[in-house]
């Protein structure tokens, strides 16, 4: 069946149309290997998505299992996302089901150093509340610093205004931590603001400071209230980072992430219903590049680069006005290119790391001197 607006069918036998729609040549398909490599490199980075049906099935299975055996069910539900995990245990609390242990959250396509526990004993939070605890660097396969008991629920209103600030942190040192025992927060609405410094775009490995300010509805600070820093690294679920802290007399709490290695969303939580707006922090990769010395008269040279903050399999381009080459990073985050060398003039190039969910794009300009042959 030919459509009415098929207005160019009469040109089907036209030589130009036939030439334009001729079968592909070998030259046009010469980059197939590169396209295939780019696709295969991108596939492992895609986050595994759970369909609604699968989540529902998993949840129902978990509920049924919980009715049979609390211990087995707790082990099984530990595989659920944190939010589902919390809801399930809340709904089934009357069954006296033990809470699951913290589950490891492996990251995709990344080297996995030995797991490092960052869970502090609960008593440490109560007896020595550090105002600005330093969160150890979290390796990709480290377990989540989930609490071993449900967090306390403050008596506060669930409808809270939330603001986000991205200004630099205050230069005044934080006040000393409170020494008095924890007290209940006021039964009024509170506001939790979050400040991330040095900003929302940081080079890979940068130290990021997250500060929060907890205030009541009348603007007065809420002191000695438990605040938790949660993070959602790219492609993963929300998870707690480090140990909770208590707000100072001025209602402030601070956390330090010594080395941010991938994009993440950060938010502060003060109880079940009080949280700040998530702040996205983007990691900028760092490119280290080496150009091999060119022999006199050489027509090409080798450019080697290493990208810190990228993932194995990420695509890297070396671009020039005359075209581009692309390669994928190996396990050591390295790639090499063979680029042309002019005998008479300097050639400028740009090495480009494409943006992924784990990091921002970044480019580095470099040049190859003339070979002088």
């Amino acid at each position: 069946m030919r459509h009415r607006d098929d207005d160019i069918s009469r040109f089907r036998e036209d030589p130009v149309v036939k030439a334009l729609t001729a079968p592909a040549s070998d030259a046009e398909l010469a980059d197939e290997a590169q396209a295939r490599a780019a696709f295969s490199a991108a596939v492992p980075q895609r986050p595994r998505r759970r369909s609604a049906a699968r989540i529902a099935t998993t949840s129902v299975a978990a509920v049924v299992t919980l009715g049979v055996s609390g211990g087995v069910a707790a082990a099984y539900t530990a595989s659920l996302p944190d939010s589902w995990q919390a809801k399930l245990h809340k709904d089934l609390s009357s069954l006296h089901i033990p809470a699951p242990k913290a589950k490891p959250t492996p990251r995709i396509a990344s080297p996995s150093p030995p797991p490092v526990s960052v869970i502090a004993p609960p008593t440490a939070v109560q007896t020595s509340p550090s105002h600005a605890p330093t969160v150890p660097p979290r390796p990709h396969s480290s377990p989540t610093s989930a609490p071993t008991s449900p967090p306390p629920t403050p008596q506060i209103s669930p409808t809270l205004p939330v603001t986000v600030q991205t200004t630099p942190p205050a230069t005044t040192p934080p006040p000393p931590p409170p020494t008095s025992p924890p007290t209940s927060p006021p039964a009024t609405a509170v506001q939790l603001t979050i400040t991330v410094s040095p900003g929302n775009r940081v080079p890979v490995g940068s130290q990021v400071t997250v500060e929060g300010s907890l205030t009541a509805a009348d603007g007065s600070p809420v002191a000695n209230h438990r605040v938790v820093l949660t993070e959602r690294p790219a492609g993963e679920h929300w998870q707690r980072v480090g140990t909770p802290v208590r707000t100072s007399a001025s209602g402030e709490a601070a956390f330090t992430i010594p080395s941010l290695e991938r994009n993440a969303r950060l938010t502060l939580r003060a109880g079940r219903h009080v949280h700040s707006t998530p702040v996205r922090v983007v990691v900028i990769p760092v490119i280290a590049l080496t150009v091999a010395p060119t022999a006199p008269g050489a027509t090409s040279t080798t450019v080697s680069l290493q990208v810190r903050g990228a993932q194995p399999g990420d695509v890297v381009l070396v671009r020039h006005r005359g075209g581009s080459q692309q390669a994928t990073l190996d396990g050591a985050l390295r790639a090499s290119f063979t680029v042309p060398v002019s005998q008479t003039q300097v050639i400028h190039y740009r090495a480009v790391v494409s943006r992924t969910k784990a990091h921002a794009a970044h480019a580095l300009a470099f040049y190859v001197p003339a070979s002088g042959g």
Partner: protein
Amino acid sequence: MGTTLIGKQPSQRARRPDPVAGPADEPLDDALRRARAGDESGFVELWRELHPRLLRYLRVRSGKNYEDVAAETWLHVIRDLPSFIGNVDGFRAWLFTLARHRAIDAARAAAARPSIPVPDFSAVGRHPTAAAAEAEALDRMSTDHAIELVKRLPPDQADMVMLRVVAGLDVSVVADIVEKSPGAVRVSVHRGLRALARDPQVRSEAV
């Protein structure tokens, strides 16, 4: 009977046969579905079918850095493919829309940064491709020549001709991409093809 599909998403448009030499889309729908699921063979199938058309379109639209633009387009496609919804018609429209935007960006960047001619970048580290047969070589010359002829058309008209003939997009899709009315696209493409058919070199080759 024709239908007016203005305002609908490409994925919602009615399927219609390629007017000139369009590919059979049913296998490509399956390839698209597999590619979205992460199957490399499905993606390669799509790439083999659409990349040559994309290159030909970009040779007219983008100039000498067309391979660079095509590579960036495919990287964009790979990145966002899991979130793509639609059939292969919609995918083709999406692909060429991305390519057109990339070409426009590249043209702006080229205008801002003057270039220095260098040796052929693509020739380094790449083995030359030998022609399979004389007939194929002649076909390639004919395709190259046809592209050069299309380049002589006014840019907007050449853009529409390539999107309509080479990309195999519907009139309404092309109209959405170039932000013109379907009637204007239909007339412009028709005039462009007639102008190409009247070209003395084409007529001599036809004889």
